[in-house]
């Protein structure tokens, strides 16, 4: 009985719940203030615009759970986008083959990050800062910064611009990825080992878990997901250029942290990340529909991030204070 009460109290104070309330408040506010904000068309646009960053954020969550970071996902998106274009236009591959090859490249690039981080034990921040420049540089070198891939067939552009069963056609991919990552992180031993590694890599190793393999896995997954995001991005814009996805890594990290994942690893959830992505996407769209200047999006994202973090820390601090107050009393009772 007591346990149950405690559990529901925790549930109400949990970061995800607070973020969810903030998201609903955001929605109600912009629906009242904005013009044509709450329409079905706009909901679809919000979903469409958040697919690529959403995918990157999903892949980023297990990485941050292990206490790592991947700054190279945005650059890898750019590299994969132009390679996809090259496979299709210059190598003459049909779109599905080009897509599979691009995903293979994504896995290879993720594997490159993984081998440096997991086996050479180099810090993820430094490794991916390096590949952040390397991948973007490669993309620019391959296209000489000039080449742009366009004129994709309409059957491919459908993936990025049309609707399928009433929802944006790229949305099922995002939903599928979200379910996959949710099951991976919350319902498998893999997921539990990511958290364990985040709390204590050494301890996890002594517990007999293959830490290097597990860490490698999350970076390879991020590579694959970046490649998928690149293909969706290309379909949405109808063009692939070397500057695709500039700055997306920071949006993804922001969404993950907003979703309650600790940047030090160990704590976090996929549903939190999904809420984080939604909160940012709704904010961006809402500002445009309320006819507010676009620069406010960056500012308000910052405010939202700080408020959400403060909102989830405050209850813990209060309960911490209560616990400290009751502690001496307890000590007196014992003596």
């Amino acid at each position: 009985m007591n346990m149950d009460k405690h559990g529901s109290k925790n549930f109400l104070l949990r970061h995800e719940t607070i973020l969810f309330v903030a998201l609903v408040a955001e929605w109600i506010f912009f629906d009242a203030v904005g013009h044509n904000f709450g329409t079905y068309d706009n909901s679809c646009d919000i979903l469409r615009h958040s697919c690529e960053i959403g995918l990157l954020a999903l892949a980023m969550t297990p990485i941050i759970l292990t206490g790592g970071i991947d700054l190279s996902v945005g650059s890898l998106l750019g590299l994969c986008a132009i390679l996809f274009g090259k496979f299709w236009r210059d190598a003459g591959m049909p779109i599905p083959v080009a897509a599979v090859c691009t995903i293979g490249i994504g896995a290879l690039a993720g594997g490159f990050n993984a081998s440096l981080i997991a086996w050479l034990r180099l810090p993820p921040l430094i490794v991916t800062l390096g590949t952040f420049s390397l991948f973007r540089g490669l993309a620019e070198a391959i296209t000489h910064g000039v080449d742009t891939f366009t004129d994709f067939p309409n059957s491919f552009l459908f993936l990025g611009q049309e609707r399928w069963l009433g929802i944006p056609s790229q949305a099922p991919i995002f939903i599928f990825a979200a379910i996959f990552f949710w099951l991976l992180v919350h319902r498998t031993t893999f997921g539990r080992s990511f958290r364990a590694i985040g709390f204590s890599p050494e301890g996890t190793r002594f517990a007999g878990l293959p830490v290097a393999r597990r860490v490698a896995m999350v970076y390879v997954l991020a590579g694959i997901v970046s490649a998928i995001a690149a293909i969706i991005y290309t379909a949405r814009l109808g063009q692939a250029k070397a500057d695709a996805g500039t700055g997306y890594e920071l949006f993804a990290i922001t969404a993950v942290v907003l979703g309650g994942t600790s940047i030090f690893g160990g704590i976090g959830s996929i549903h939190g990340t999904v809420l984080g992505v939604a909160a940012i996407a709704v904010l961006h769209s809402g500002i445009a529909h309320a006819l507010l200047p676009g620069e406010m999006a960056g500012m308000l994202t910052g405010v939202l991030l700080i408020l959400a973090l403060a909102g989830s820390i405050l209850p813990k601090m209060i309960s911490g204070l209560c616990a400290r107050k009751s502690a001496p009393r307890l000590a007196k009772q014992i003596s």
Partner: protein
Amino acid sequence: MKRTFLLLLAAVITIFSGCKKNSAVPLGDNANSTPAAKKLTIAFLPKSKGNAYFVSCAKGAQRAADELGDKLIIDGPTDPDPARQNEIVENWITLGVDVIAAACENKEGISTALRKAQAKGIKVITYDADALPDARSFFVNQATPQGIGYSLMDEAARLCESNGEFAVITGSLTAENQVEWRKYVEERRAAAYPDMKNVSVQACDDLKDKAQSEATALMGAYPNLKLILSTTSLGVPGAAEAIKQAGKTGVVKNIGLGLPSENKRYVHDGVTQSVILWKTEDLGYLTVYAADALARSTLKPGDRTFRAGSLGEFQIEGDNIMLGKPFTFNKDNIDQFDF
């Protein structure tokens, strides 16, 4: 965990069921009045928001909208993400604006969004940098690439007495309009000034300090350099600063495309000889007048001329509304312009 999942599910359901099913209403406040008297909503998209060039365009656009009694929405990217312009346009589509006037950063990329706007009955006009022809009705052409390239080269040759080495600083090696302008600079040089030699082309990524370091490097690498020509507005003050610091004022001449306000100081100091540009406020002004006329169907494909408020009549060549010849700002006239 299960409860959170259910909560999420409930959220998605409430959000989607709460949606007013495609009940998009137009932004204009008096939808049932006659079309001629209707107040239009014009969306004005610059390439980037903070750029002084587009700030000045927007000023002219606002003046035109005030004269016409239209509502003007100005929004543009503040970060270098090439997808941002598309997202802004897509937001305007659901917002229900009447007409979109866009300066396009990525021709092919934004065209998909502009076509979508046209399919929803929104009129589209481009200015400054064009989209693909099927994605807009008209392009307000600030100056032909030929006019710009030739004007720059003629001015360079005049200052160098038609011989010697010069170098080019460009915004980016890739941007459509930069490539075109450089092509016509070269065409004019080859045809009219064979004794002049273009020794180097450097990109400054539209950054003033990069332009400055590139100019310093150019002066070091080519001691006989007589002139630096910038095809981007931030290149001219950047190069001017480099020339001044190197103590080569007047020895290495400096010209290029640029805003008078950013170059006034250097022109008066004699570091920069002349700045070439069109009147950017007029560009914004003409664009909004044309956008308004297009939405009211008083401007139609096939028209040969167009009258824009206090600026008078403009020529239309095909689907290009021509702003006219570039203007040269120098010591004598630069103080008359405040953009």
